[in-house]
């Protein structure tokens, strides 16, 4: 009897360890990491309306950062990527989860709501999906964009602005789930669209006992590429 218990224990150990190993290797469930909490903010959108992080609860939000005076190709590429994603959103099946896109200007002294509105129209932004935002108190912006979204920008002494292009994907709970800082092997728009699908799957399927599998995927770092 005692031996039976011992064998039972060993078998259980092998199943648990082997199962965990197989789960990590074959990754039947993939998730996006819970990177950290997205920052809180209160901004003004291109229509002069208040836009806070709380308004974006319950939906996926994709943030990008730019300034309208930028004539660098990287800024044009940022808007271009957002536009590609915007055009694919309608065809994307995310269940009932709405998606928002917010572009925050890092040049709030110059980029007033009127200028942002003109910029939105010139790039072809669909106001149903894509908003532009500026901040009333520019001294707070560094804490939101640099401290919260960890996106680097700096106003140089000669008046130029240095900006590292970045996209940040935030889920409905206000948690950052994706950061896209540099060109990886696949294009940013493809990755972001794919990641939105992965995130929507987790939100929809992670109920009841299936949520254990999703938590295990987080624990074993089974992150979607």
């Amino acid at each position, binding site marked *: 009897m005692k031996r039976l218990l011992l064998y039972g224990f060993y078998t259980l150990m092998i199943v648990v360890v082997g199962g965990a190993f197989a789960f990590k290797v074959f990754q039947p469930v993939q998730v996006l990491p819970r990177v950290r909490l997205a920052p809180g903010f209160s901004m003004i959108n291109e229509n002069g309306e208040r836009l806070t992080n709380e308004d974006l609860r319950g939906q996926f939000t994709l943030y990008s950062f730019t300034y309208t005076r930028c004539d660098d190709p990287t800024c044009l590429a940022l808007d271009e990527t957002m536009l590609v994603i915007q055009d694919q959103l309608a065809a994307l099946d995310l269940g009932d989860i709405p998606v928002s896109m917010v572009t925050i200007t890092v040049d709030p002294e110059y980029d007033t709501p009127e200028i942002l509105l003109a910029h939105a129209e010139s790039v072809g932004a669909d106001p149903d999906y894509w908003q532009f935002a500026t901040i009333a108190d520019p001294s707070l912006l560094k804490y939101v964009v*640099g401290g919260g979204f960890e996106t*680097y920008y700096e106003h140089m002494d000669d008046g130029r602005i240095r900006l590292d292009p970045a996209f940040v994907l935030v889920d409905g709970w206000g948690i950052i789930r994706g950061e896209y800082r*540099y*060109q*990886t092997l696949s294009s940013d728009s493809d990755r972001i669209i794919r990641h939105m699908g992965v995130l929507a799957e987790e939100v929809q399927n992670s109920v009841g006992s299936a949520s254990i599998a999703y938590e295990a995927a987080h624990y074993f770092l089974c992150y979607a590429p």
Partner: protein
Amino acid sequence: MTDKQSMHIDPYEKNWIRLSIGLLVVFATAVTVAGFAFGFQVPTPEDRVDPRTVATEGPWADPGLRELVPGKKYEAYILAQTWAFLPNEITVPVGAEVTFYVTSKDVQHGFKLQDTNINMQIVPGQVSKLTVTFDEPGVHNFICTEYCGAAHAIMFGTLTVE
């Protein structure tokens, strides 16, 4: 042949089996405690980049320290190559939380920042990322810990906290 005889295990062997299982438990506990209680970080591959273009496009084309929040939060993009780190001198203020993004444009390197818990493999095509907070003023060398050719021994840089 009785059941007992068929399963006979020498007492010495039995003790060794117990010891090896006990060691596994000790190691698993140590890893868990190190990870969750002491905050040891495993440098997971953050992302993949193209090593052929990494030195000319994106943040490593202009490597160095970037200030996210003045005096508080920084990120450092460091490019490893034979046989130097770009940049090889970094200065941060006391209390700064610095996230290192390191990649290589040629062969495999290492990045160990002395007297911190940062020690990463730098693999071409892969970005290694770790964060550390500098609470004390001082000088930390970062050295290449992976043999990368003739001048591997002189591949190092200096981070000053002041």
